[in-house]
């Protein structure tokens, strides 16, 4: 019904109602006049009828007003409540209330709600997609980084490590004694590995490099820089440093007109290269300078002999002796230098270790490729192949040489098929390229080996012999009359199988990122370092545990194992752990062996506490220590302060005390009990590292609970800990 018609209808109804009232009243009044019909009513009767009529009218209008209230006042209020509810909860709809107009309004609201939900779902979907692709990219990056043969470390401007690869960990974590000092880790300072000044200087050079070419393209203005430095283990590293460009966030520096948020270090171990260069320099030096003296003597003596031929024979003999002696000395010197140099020469070319079978496979494919100038490809058969044989070769050159020889056989002798074989011959590998039948003389073969390699489309200034010599090998042509076979035989030194093949990245558990990087650390700044007022969730922790010979540190009980792991940005970094047995240099009691299962035999040859503690101290640098019943472990550490000179001054949090804060009514705060209460599965208990990991997980579960209690900063956690009863226990 149209609103206008409703209005007309309503007005009509109200008019009719009033008209009916007037007509009825008038009727009554008229009916009251005597004489009109003869049978008049008494005035009392008329009043009663009038009253009844009025009451009926009143009741009717009351009902009308109530209906109107229901339709136009109460229903909108109810609708408003329902609309309010939809603000907080998704999926609710507004019901149909009151007048038809309100139904229309309700429908409109419902459509709006449906639209909102659809768009929210769309946004959520897009966020999920974006996150998934980001996650995928990160995993890809991590996999790529893990495979790189160079070390890569990414740091923010404070020198905090945001990302590193396995290679970097291997190279940079080695301690001075060759042991693993675990110096590299997420959120750790790169300055424990590299000198702060060195990095600072390199950053400055980046800036200068930017400043020198102010008018150049802005991207090119921030260049890269290089430096060479030594690791704690004494390896020489060449570091290539390039800046990470970023937006104008709070943690960046202006370099060459661009803001940088960190830097990437690509490291290359140049120890052997440098040694080689130094050796060669020394060799040349000794040849030049060592040669001058003897040569000077010979020359002077020779000139005397020729200039003064009238000298007495005795004098002549003296000069001749000088010439003979000095020439002998010089020869010996040359001999020595040449043997040293030839050793060195072997390493001059980029020889790479390669599985022989793999090389042969590639060679067969390359020789078998059909050339556009040939109607058909040369057939290649692979005969005996030693699958275990490793070679150290310039694979590119070697493949080129084999292909060159094979194609020349095809072109000049119409050989249809060649065979390849690779066998071990003592310390050498024997690589044969053979063919059947076709006669070829030695002279031709010799010239093939000596000519620069040139086949259709490819040419090289090197000869086959050059290439083989580079690989420290030898090649010759040979024929076996009986079998009608001819072959080029190459002898190459066999290599050892490389030991450290790139390791596959440790797969992360579902929903968990691999722990080699944490870009969230980009926001860190050295300026906000007053630890006490930092939120607990922001801090880095070293969660640790020790196993000991007994419970009385002051009575001579000693540490026999230290295990620790780290928490950075509320993630437990299981890959970055410290796990070290310690020789206590005293007897182990049978009771303690029952607890930790560490026997005397396991401790033989392990480092003593004087060696281990400094390493552990370095591992803990810049973190808050967390332990279960940490007071006990700290007591052991403190008793060693004098002896080792290592002081553990880091703030310490104790999960036992924190548990007492969270659950004051529980009777036990043993680690297992807490773990059970907080839903942490326990494994590997009573190894120091196992306990440390459980403690770490428990601690992470506690953080949100503490936050609910209003304990958010380190200071608050420490103060609350001190108030609890257990804090008064002393060991």
């Amino acid at each position, binding site marked *: 019904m149209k609103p206008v018609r409703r209005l007309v209808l309503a007005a009509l109804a109200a008019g009719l109602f009033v008209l009916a009232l007037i007509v009825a009243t008038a009727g009554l009044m008229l009916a009251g006049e005597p004489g009109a019909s003869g049978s008049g009513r008494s005035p009392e009767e008329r009043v009663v009828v009038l009253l009844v009529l009025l009451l009926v009218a009143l009741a009717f209008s009351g009902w009308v007003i109530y209906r109107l209230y229901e339709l136009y006042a109460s229903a909108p209020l109810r609708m408003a409540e329902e609309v309010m509810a939809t603000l907080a909860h998704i999926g609710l709809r507004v019901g149909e209330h009151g007048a038809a107009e309100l139904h229309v309004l309700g429908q409109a609201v419902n459509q709006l709600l449906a639209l909102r939900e659809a768009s929210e779902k769309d946004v959520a979907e897009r966020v999920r997609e974006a996150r998934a692709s980001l996650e995928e990219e990160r995993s890809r990056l991590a996999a790529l980084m893990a495979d790189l043969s160079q070390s890569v470390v990414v740091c923010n401007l404070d020198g905090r490590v945001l990302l590193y690869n396995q290679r970097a960990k291997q190279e940079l974590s080695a301690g001075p004694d060759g042991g693993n000092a675990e110096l590299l880790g997420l959120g750790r300072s790169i300055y424990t590995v590299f000198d702060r000044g060195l990095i600072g200087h390199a950053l400055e050079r980046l800036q200068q490099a930017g400043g020198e070419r102010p008018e150049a393209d802005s991207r090119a203005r921030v260049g890269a820089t290089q430096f060479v430095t030594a690791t704690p283990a004494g390896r020489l590293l060449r570091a290539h440093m390039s800046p990470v460009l970023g937006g104008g966030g709070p943690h960046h520096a202006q370099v060459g007109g661009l803001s940088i948020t960190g830097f990437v270090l690509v490291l290359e171990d140049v120890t052997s290269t440098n040694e080689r260069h130094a050796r060669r320099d020394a060799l040349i030096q000794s040849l030049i*300078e060592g040669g*001058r003296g003897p040569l*000077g003597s*010979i*020359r002077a*003596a020779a*000139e005397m002999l020729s200039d003064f031929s009238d000298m007495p024979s005795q*004098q002549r003999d003296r*000069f001749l002796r000088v010439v003979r002696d000095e020439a002998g000395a010089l020869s010996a010197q040359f001999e020595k230098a040449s043997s040293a140099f030839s050793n060195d020469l072997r390493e001059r070319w980029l020889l790479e270790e390669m599985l022989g079978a793999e090389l042969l496979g590639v060679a067969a494919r390359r020789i078998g490729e059909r050339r556009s100038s040939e109607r058909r490809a040369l057939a290649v058969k692979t005969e005996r192949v030693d699958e275990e044989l490793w070679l150290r070769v310039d694979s590119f050159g070697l493949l080129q040489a084999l292909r060159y020889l094979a194609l020349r056989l095809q072109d000049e002798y119409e050989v249809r098929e060649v065979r390849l074989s690779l066998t071990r011959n003592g310390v050498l590998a024997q690589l044969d390229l053979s063919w059947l039948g076709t006669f070829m003389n030695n002279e031709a073969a010799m010239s093939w080996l000596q000519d620069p390699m040139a086949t259709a489309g490819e040419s090289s200034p090197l000869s086959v012999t050059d290439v083989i010599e580079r690989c420290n090998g030898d090649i010759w042509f040979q024929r076996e009359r009986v079998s009608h076979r001819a072959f080029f035989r190459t002898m190459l030194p066999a290599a050892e199988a490389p030991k450290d093949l790139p390791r596959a990245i440790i797969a992360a558990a579902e929903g968990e990122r691999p722990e080699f990087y944490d870009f969230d650390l980009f926001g860190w700044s050295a300026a906000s370092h007053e630890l006490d007022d930092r939120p607990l969730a922001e801090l880095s922790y070293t969660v640790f545990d020790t196993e000991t010979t007994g419970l009385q540190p002051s009575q001579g009980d000693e540490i026999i194992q230290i295990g620790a792991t780290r928490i950075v940005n509320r993630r437990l970094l299981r890959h970055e752990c410290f796990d070290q047995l310690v020789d206590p240099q005293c007897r182990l009691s049978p009771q303690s062996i029952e607890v930790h299962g560490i026997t005397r035999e396991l401790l033989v040859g392990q480092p003593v506490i004087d060696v281990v503690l400094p390493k552990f101290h370095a591992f803990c640098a810049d973190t808050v220590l967390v332990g279960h019943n940490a007071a006990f472990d700290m007591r052991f550490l403190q008793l060693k302060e004098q002896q080792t000179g290592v002081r553990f001054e880091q703030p310490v949090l104790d999960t036992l005390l924190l548990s007492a804060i969270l659950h004051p009514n529980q009777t036990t705060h043993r680690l297992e009990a807490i773990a059970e209460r907080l839903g942490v599965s326990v494994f590997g208990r009573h190894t120091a590292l196992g306990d440390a990991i459980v403690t770490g997980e428990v601690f992470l579960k506690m953080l949100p609970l503490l936050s609910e209690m209003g304990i958010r900063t380190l200071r608050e956690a420490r103060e609350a800990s001190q108030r609890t009863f257990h804090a008064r226990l002393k060991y």
Partner: protein
Amino acid sequence: MSKRILIADDEQNIVISIEFLLRREGFEVLVAGDGEEALAKVRGERPDLVLLDVMMPKMNGFDVCQALRADPDLAGTRILMLTAKGRDTEVSKGLGLGADGYMTKPFSTKELLAEVRKLLGM
């Protein structure tokens, strides 16, 4: 009066030739086998020219040269350094320390003689 020349070199095989050559040319020749002996002989015998090898036991040629130049009495003594190291830096170091000339082994005896004569003003 013939000029007096001191050969300071521990390498006997070169001393033989230089000594022979210079005597044949009519010079009076003295020989010292190490740096300290060279210094003592310069002070005692007052040669007109010292042929000074750089690499010598006890005291190297640079130190001897420096010691000689520090003594005003010996200002007239000419110094010709002989060395088996031909680096430019060494040449300039020798000349910087007050040597009058510098020759690198192996040298031609004719050039040596010419240099000796030049330094002695002959």
